């Protein structure tokens, strides 16, 4: 992966001057690279990775396995894009194996997610079946381990 993207994946808050310093490039270089990455759609967005448990947010998240009937033109693409557009859907992936789409859905509570599945998702033409798995606890997300505060245990001065 490009060194700039590697930096951003770890900490997207870095200023362009900080990134320039770390990469040994000029600030103008970094601004140009960033602009073109965003323009090309290589960078879809920037967001904070939040440990919901820490902030006392009790909203729920579910992984929904969706089986679809593929269409003659475009296979699963049309349906998958349609499903991905719902605001409740935070991620949507085409999968190999026993089902076709893995859809991650977030909602205020269990009922909201259930309503989304029964009213919106399963009623779509082409959706053969759904299986909803609610998320119970987060150990790691987007490369960050939850509650893993790494303390420096090294002695302060060593040879």
């Amino acid at each position, binding site marked *: 992966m490009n060194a700039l993207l590697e930096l951003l994946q770890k900490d997207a808050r870095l200023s362009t001057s900080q990134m320039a*310093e*770390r990469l040994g490039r000029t600030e103008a270089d970094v601004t140009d690279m960033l602009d073109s990455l965003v323009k090309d759609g290589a960078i879809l967005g920037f967001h904070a990775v939040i440990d919901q448990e820490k902030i006392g947010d009790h909203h729920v998240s579910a992984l929904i396995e969706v089986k679809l009937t593929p269409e003659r033109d475009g296979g699963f693409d049309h349906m998958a894009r349609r499903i991905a557009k719902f605001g409740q859907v935070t991620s949507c992936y085409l999968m190999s194996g026993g089902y076709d789409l893995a859809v991650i859905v977030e909602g205020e509570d269990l009922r909201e997610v259930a309503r989304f599945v029964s009213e919106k998702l399963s009623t779509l033409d082409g959706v053969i079946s759904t299986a909803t798995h609610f998320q119970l606890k987060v150990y790691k997300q987007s490369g960050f381990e939850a509650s893993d505060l*790494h303390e420096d245990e090294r*002695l*302060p*001065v060593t*040879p």
Partner: protein
Amino acid sequence: MKPLEERIATQVNNLPRSGIRDFFELVLGRDDVISLGVGEPDFSAPWHIREAAIYSLEKGHTSYTSNLGLLSLREEISEYVDQQFGVNYDPKTEILITVGVSEALDLACRALLNPGDEVIYHEPCYVSYSPSIAMAYGVAVPVETKVEDEFVLKAEDVAAKITDRTRLLLLNFPTNPTGAVEPLDELKKIAQLAIEHDLIVISDEIYSELLYGEDSGMKIGHHTSIASLPGMKERTILLHGFSKAFAMTGFRLGYSCAPQVLTEAMMKIHQYSMLCAPIMSQNAALEALKNGAAEVEKMRKAYARRRNLMLKRLREMGVPCFAPGGAFYLFPDIRKFGLSSKEFALRLLEEESVAVVPGDAFGAAGQGCVRACYATGYDQLEIALDRIEAFVGRLQS
């Protein structure tokens, strides 16, 4: 009863107190210190390596191993050293797994020195060199390397110290504490000296993976082991280990590669003092060599970024500092501030809560410099550098 102080053996009594130890105690009592005084990576050992150690315990691998170490690990080391250094060692007879390079160095000195034999080594250097020589009843003969020469060890300076009692030449490149890398032409001259005077070379190459040539436009980007030079394998004890590149300091695992007769002699001491290195560390090391290359490179890149930041900032704030080719230390020259290394380090600690190690803790030749380790998170480094800038700003005004 005789006072206990008088029971201590003379050569132990004569060992100087470590300058590092003194400074360590000062730092320990303080909060909010950003320490650039460490000599180890800030990374934990990569997870797959830790997991291999756990698995080894889980499977009940808790026994002794062969004195030399697990054959499977020696085989893997043989292959790694061949790839990395271009020297081939027989895993059955020429490789000994030790408890860190420190033990290997101790073994080499004890195996090869008779009382009064001289060992030439270069200062500033790792703190255990001179004591290891003294504990083997040898005579430590330091050769000074200078900041003006970017701490290159000059063959002519080595030659000047050779006497008819000289038996060993102890080298460490890249060097702790300076980060210096020896230029190939000078290394060749030193090898020539060793051959002419029939010296055995102990070469501590623990930092050999951590080189920053291509990241900073320097010529040095490739490590040459003195063992790989013509006529040298038969007179070199190559020491290496897992602490630095694989971030495995606490596993305490090193190894020596040397001709069979020397390996055998070192093993004799090792079998009676240590028996063998811990088996879970050996199993972890096996995993490190098999699958660790990518993680090593990732860490090296992180060090390179930090090194470049620190070098640039120090120079911008008017602290002269040569660009070292390896390890994870900078060794800035603080003479212009009119303070001794110790005064500089003490005041920096007291006034700005940043710990660096006084250069003379690594031998008299380190006076006038301090060692700053950049194996610390980038954000922490930035704060430490701001504090150093404030400090030297006050010294300069």
